[in-house]
């Protein structure tokens, strides 16, 4: 309700009330005097005649006069009620509804992150108390937000410094070991060599661990923005499989990519590769050497594209499945002993898939192997227009 409308309501109400009260009073008194006088005159003029007739007449006059008085009274009452309602409307709107509406607007602003939060001059009534309370609440929220922002900045600073400071010594260690094991400084005897190899592979593990932990921290702090674009799915899959060639050869497990119609996906290629690497290296770890790990692409029009990684290992029970995507958890059991790893691979894969607005999951039964899959919402056949999942 605009102030001008409020003013008009108020003026109408006041005018109405004044008109009705004064108008009513004037009418009332004129009627009162004239009727009384008329009846008096009538009574006096007819005194010598039939007295009873005079009385009856007088009495009738009085009734008529009283009826009129009641009507006037009723009219006055009605008008007072009407103007009273106008006043009530004015009061409700100006004192309650308008402040409430203003409060709602401020709260909505607040919700939307616009912090024009203060009521500059809170009134002296209950509404004013509400406004004062709102002001102090808003200030508190703002203060906490600023604190959180500072903490967040400190956290990302820490992450950047930690990344650099942790990687620098690891670069040196890895470099030194690499130089020695590559035989650049002369041939080593077998015992020394085997120890150097252990040191080297454990350094690699330490580097992986550090990278995983830093990645996880970055994802959680939302410091890892995606650089999404259209990429050829087959290229990414081949590149990832190529990258894992060393590991798969060492584990004596083959990776088999099933053929599919050429497809492009809308994704961050590096992160996509990271997701797939994590799923594949997991599959390789748990796969028997006799059977390959399979990569299958399932594309159905107007559905999310599904990328499956299937192994023919021992599979998992529902209990094991339930902890899979949590941090630092591995599906271990007596006949599935802990496999070296950070326990972060799947948690990272999950976070990255969700950043892409896809889903990740696993189908598995004991002794039947496991099929890990993830989906991406945006994809297209290379020879067709874009296909968006509904």
């Amino acid at each position, binding site marked *: 309700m605009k102030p001008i409308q409020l003013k008009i309501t108020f003026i109408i109400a006041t005018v109405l009330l004044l008109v009705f009260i004064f108008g009513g009073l004037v009418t009332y008194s004129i009627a009162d005097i004239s009727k009384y006088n008329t009846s008096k005159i009538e009574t006096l003029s007819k005194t010598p005649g039939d007295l009873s007739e005079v009385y009856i007449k007088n009495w009738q006059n009085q009734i008529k006069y009283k009826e009129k008085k009641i009507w006037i009274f009723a009219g006055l009452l009605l008008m007072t009620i009407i103007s009273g309602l106008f006043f009530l409307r004015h009061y409700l709107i100006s004192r309650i509804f308008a402040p409430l509406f203003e409060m709602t607007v401020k709260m909505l602003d607040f919700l939307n992150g616009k912090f024009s939060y203060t009521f500059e001059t809170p009134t002296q009534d209950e509404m004013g108390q509400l406004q004062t309370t709102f002001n102090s609440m808003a200030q508190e929220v703002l203060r906490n937000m600023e604190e959180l922002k500072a903490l967040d900045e400190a956290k990302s600073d820490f992450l950047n410094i930690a990344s*650099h400071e942790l990687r620098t010594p690891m*670069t040196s260690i890895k470099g030194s070991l690499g130089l020695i094991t590559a035989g*650049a400084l002369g041939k080593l005897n077998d015992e020394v060599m085997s120890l150097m190899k252990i040191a080297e592979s454990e350094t690699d593990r330490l580097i992986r661990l550090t990278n995983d932990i830093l990645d996880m921290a970055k994802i959680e702090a939302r410091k890892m923005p995606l650089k999404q674009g259209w990429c050829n799915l087959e290229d990414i899959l081949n590149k990832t499989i190529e990258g894992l060639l060393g590991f798969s050869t060492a584990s004596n497990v083959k990776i088999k990519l099933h053929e599919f119609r050429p497809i492009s996906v809308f994704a961050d290629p590096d992160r996509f590769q990271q997701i797939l690497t994590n799923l594949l290296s997991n599959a390789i770890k748990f796969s028997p050497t006799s059977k390959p790990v399979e990569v299958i692409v399932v594309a159905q029009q107007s559905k999310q594209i599904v990328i499956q990684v299937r192994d023919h290992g021992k599979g998992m029970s529902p209990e094991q499945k339930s902890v899979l995507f949590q941090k630092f958890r591995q599906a271990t059991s007596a006949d599935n002993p802990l496999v070296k790893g950070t326990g972060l691979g799947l948690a990272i894969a999950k976070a990255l898939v969700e950043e892409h607005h896809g889903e990740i999951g696993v189908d598995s039964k004991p002794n039947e192997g496991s099929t890990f899959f993830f989906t991406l919402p945006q994809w297209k056949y290379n020879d067709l227009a874009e296909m968006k999942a509904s």
Partner: protein
Amino acid sequence: MKILLAEDDESISKITKMTLELIGKHKVTAVFDGEHACKLANEKDFDLILLDGMMPKMNGLDVCRAVKAGPKGSVPVIFLSAKSQESDIREALRVGAIGYIQKPFEPATVCQQIEKIMKEYGEKVA
């Protein structure tokens, strides 16, 4: 090749130098800050400049810009960069670097990486 290596971490510098000399059979001059790198790059003839991203006095990007604007602007520059500095990598390529090698790198492959980048660059120039 005659290589100028600018890297502030002494251990990494030493290992990189040894790697390039022992495995790659290159001739390496090592400096430990950006200013020295800039000075040497403009004074002497190198076939390649390897720059670390973060260095005291002048960072890698500034060195690269200065060298590219100077008399030896045609000398190829490759960055040695930690994974966390992805934005720096893009920036490096923008200011004229021909490639980057990610840290931590393996001595056995760093020479191959350099060779590969140099070969691609040679093809591009030709």
